[in-house]
């Protein structure tokens, strides 16, 4: 294996390349089994799948490049794959062999990419997949003839055929051992080659790929913008020369297809068949009426399962966390500071985040099944028009809908969007969807202040309105982000609708596992650090005299009541409490007193924390949304002039504030990680807080002017 491996110190590297939906991942899994890892390419959130297998006593490394349609890349995925093929990819050595994966049912279009790859003159072999679907499509393919036409080694892979896997490994191993076979390149290549030579001769600093992209590419190239005047002139002259020889980019594509057509005619026999099962199924699933009904049902099921299936696991985690808190708290009872930092800081902080793990795993199981089966692109087809005017496309639907359960998996699900700017816009509006963590806040306020006065129907209407407000606002915000701030280019929405098939279960489980792992690691690091900061702000300073004074003045002998009073007093004089009082004037115009303000500040890590913070302030110990004590204390709360703090109007304003604000550390950290930018996480926090404040202000002042409240 020395002849083709440029560097003997590392094992040979083979790269899987091919169109999306060709079963590339299945080939990868068949080769590597569980010997695989998922990482990221540096600087982009494109997943990098690597693995290895043993052949003839040697280890062969495999990288599964993202699917692509052409070497004129349009998305970050395609850019990474193109770079990988042309050996530009950051953090990745040059592959010693390319394995071209082709879908046998769609040979002609697959051959277009092959012809571009062949032109790069890299060593390549081919694997033909989906042969089991050929019968249903009424197609016959002569594999030997195809190998003969392309003059490269060729393998076939059907799911679950171990013998074919071994044959493929043998072909890979043999190809690595032998000097590379020169690939057949198309007739127009020599003419193009001389033009590329010409350009590179004048400007040695540009690479072959960039030269090609300058002359024949469909988009701008990154060769030091603005282009030097001399280079621009030369490029212009060469382009005119190319045009006059009918070598325009579009004409080249046509010529490639003529070449592919000639091969297909020699190797493929196609008889007109009745509709395949997949096409019959698609008739229903994309039907303008039934398609929408089924889509709604699928989304409902997904949403419902995130809500309900996760509950037992979340309960289990919560029980575990509270048991751990109790054990740690009682074993450290002699050292209250250490106990508090462990229990109220670390365990509570990380616990409040890790509790979302079941939801994330379930959502990713769903997303993987939907994507693998081919349904996701149908969902995008159905929903595209609804989102198109905002500059998003149909694919944004899944992240946005998932965010109704929890923004964290929703933001991660935005990876299904190929355009980086549209993906960014989706990530930045998804947290506006009303997630399940807002629910306890709504339930507390509605059941305390809306339901008793206006009845159950209005309570339900309020709850529904709170869920609708985020979606209503998200679409115009997405429009502003796309058109005004990010300047998202109008991307063509050209989406393949692949044949339906059963999901690859290994892949489905693996993706859910990877998503869960990433999330857990994050909870253990950044969120851990933030939790301690928030804890410290609500704990310090802690002068002993406050507790002593309360004990001295206590009229009751109830130890629990005294402890609650002490906790409340400490929170009030903590840095957080002091800050709450100091900035209360800002929240005054919204109708909030200093206690609500402290509740909002303390809820920075997670919205539902406002319940326990209010519980401490109102001195009723452990509080949740069902807590009648908390409701009574809140209802009794009054301003110095004797008027009630919590009118129905204030309750609604507070709900609107929580519907729109970004009080969720996990969301901010996830955004930071997914966009690799604290700036955008900061932007998200700022715009959502401003939006929450403004809308709350308008509601409160408007409500007061109308005599409500």
């Amino acid at each position, binding site marked *: 294996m020395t002849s083709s491996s440029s560097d003997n110190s590392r094992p040979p590297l083979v790269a899987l390349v091919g169109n999306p939906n060709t079963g590339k991942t299945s080939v990868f899994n068949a080769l590597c089994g569980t010997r695989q890892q998922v990482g990221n390419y540096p600087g982009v959130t494109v997943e990098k799948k690597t693995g290895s297998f043993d052949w003839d006593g040697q280890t062969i490394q495999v990288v599964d490049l993202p699917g692509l*349609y*052409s070497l*004129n890349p*349009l998305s970050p995925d395609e850019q990474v794959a193109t770079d990988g093929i042309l050996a530009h990819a950051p953090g990745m050595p040059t592959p010693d062999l390319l394995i071209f994966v082709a879908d046998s*049912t*769609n040979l*002609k*279009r697959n051959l*277009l990419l092959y012809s571009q790859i062949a032109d790069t003159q890299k060593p390549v072999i081919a694997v033909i997949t989906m042969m089991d679907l050929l019968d249903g*499509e009424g197609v016959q393919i002569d594999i030997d003839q195809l190998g003969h036409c392309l003059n490269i080694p060729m393998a076939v892979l059907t799911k679950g055929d171990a013998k074919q896997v071994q044959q493929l490994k043998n072909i890979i191993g043999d190809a690595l051992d032998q000097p590379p076979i020169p690939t057949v390149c198309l007739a127009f290549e020599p003419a193009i080659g001389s033009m590329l030579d010409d350009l590179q001769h004048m400007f040695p600093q540009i690479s072959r790929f960039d030269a090609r992209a300058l002359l024949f590419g*469909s988009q701008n190239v990154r060769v030091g913008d603005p282009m030097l005047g001399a280079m621009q002139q030369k490029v212009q002259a060469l382009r005119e020369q190319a045009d006059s020889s009918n070598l325009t*980019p*579009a004409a080249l*594509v*046509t010529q490639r*297809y003529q070449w592919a057509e000639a091969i297909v005619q020699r190797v493929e026999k*196609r008889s007109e068949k009745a509709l395949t099962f997949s*096409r019959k199924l*698609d008739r229903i699933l*994309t039907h*303008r*009426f039934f*398609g*929408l009904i089924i889509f709604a049902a699928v989304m409902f099921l997904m949403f419902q399962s995130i809500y309900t299936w996760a509950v037992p696991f979340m309960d289990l985690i919560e029980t575990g966390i509270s048991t751990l808190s109790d054990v740690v708290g009682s074993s450290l009872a002699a050292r209250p500071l250490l106990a508090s930092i462990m229990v109220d800081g670390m365990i509570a902080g990380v616990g409040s985040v890790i509790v979302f793990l079941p939801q994330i795993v379930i959502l990713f199981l769903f997303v993987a099944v939907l994507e693998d089966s081919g349904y996701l*692109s149908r969902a*995008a*087809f*159905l929903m*595209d*028009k*609804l989102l*198109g005017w905002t500059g998003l496309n*149909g694919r944004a639907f899944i992240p946005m809908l998932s965010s109704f359960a929890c923004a964290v998996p929703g933001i991660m699900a935005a990876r299904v969007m190929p355009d980086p700017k549209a993906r960014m816009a989706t990530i930045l509006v998804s947290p506006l969807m009303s997630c399940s963590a807002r629910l306890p806040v709504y339930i507390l306020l509605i059941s305390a202040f809306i339901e008793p006065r206006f009845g159950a129907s209005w309570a339900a209407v309020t709850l529904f309105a709170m869920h609708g407000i985020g979606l209503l606002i998200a679409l115009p915000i997405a429009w502003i982000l796309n058109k005004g701030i990010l300047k998202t280019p*109008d991307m*063509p*929405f*050209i*989406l*393949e*609708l*692949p044949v339906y098939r059963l999901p690859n279960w290994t892949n489905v489980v693996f993706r859910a596992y990877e998503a869960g792992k990433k999330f857990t690691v994050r909870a253990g690091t950044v969120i851990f650090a933030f939790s301690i900061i928030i804890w410290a702000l609500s704990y310090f300073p802690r002068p002993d005299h406050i507790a002593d004074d309360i004990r001295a003045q206590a009229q009751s002998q109830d130890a629990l009541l005294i402890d609650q009073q002490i906790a409340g007093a400490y929170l009030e004089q903590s840095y957080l409490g002091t800050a709450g009082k100091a900035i209360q004037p800002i929240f005054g115009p919204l109708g909030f007193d200093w206690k609500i303000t402290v509740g909002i500040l303390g809820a920075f890590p997670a919205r539902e924390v406002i319940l326990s913070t209010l519980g401490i302030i109102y001195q009723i110990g452990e509080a949740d949304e069902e807590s009648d004590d908390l409701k009574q204390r809140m209802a009794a709360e009054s301003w110095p002039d004797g008027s009630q703090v919590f009118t129905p109007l204030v309750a609604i304003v507070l709900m609107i504030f929580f519907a729109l604000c970004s009080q969720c550390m996990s969301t901010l950290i996830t955004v930071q990680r997914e966009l690799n930018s604290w700036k955008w996480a900061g932007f998200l926090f700022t715009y959502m807080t401003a939006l929450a404040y403004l809308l709350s202000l308008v509601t409160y002042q408007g409500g007061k002017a109308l005599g409500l409240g």
Partner: protein
Amino acid sequence: MTLDSLVPGQSARITYLEPSHPSLIRLSEMGFISGQHIQLIRKAPLGEPFKVRVMNYELCIRKSEAAAIHVEPVSLTA
């Protein structure tokens, strides 16, 4: 006429692509090449995008792309 004016179910042959369309290359690469057989299968519930069959596979494109694809019908109706 262009692809977007076909009736759902109708088949046609591609005559040429609007040379100035920004997605000209990608549309060509996806199989929209003059002479190819093409079928408009259906339109999405809100009128857009279109589900199209070309080169024996299916994909969806928006009206703005479909309007750049000039065709001559091979069947008058669905």
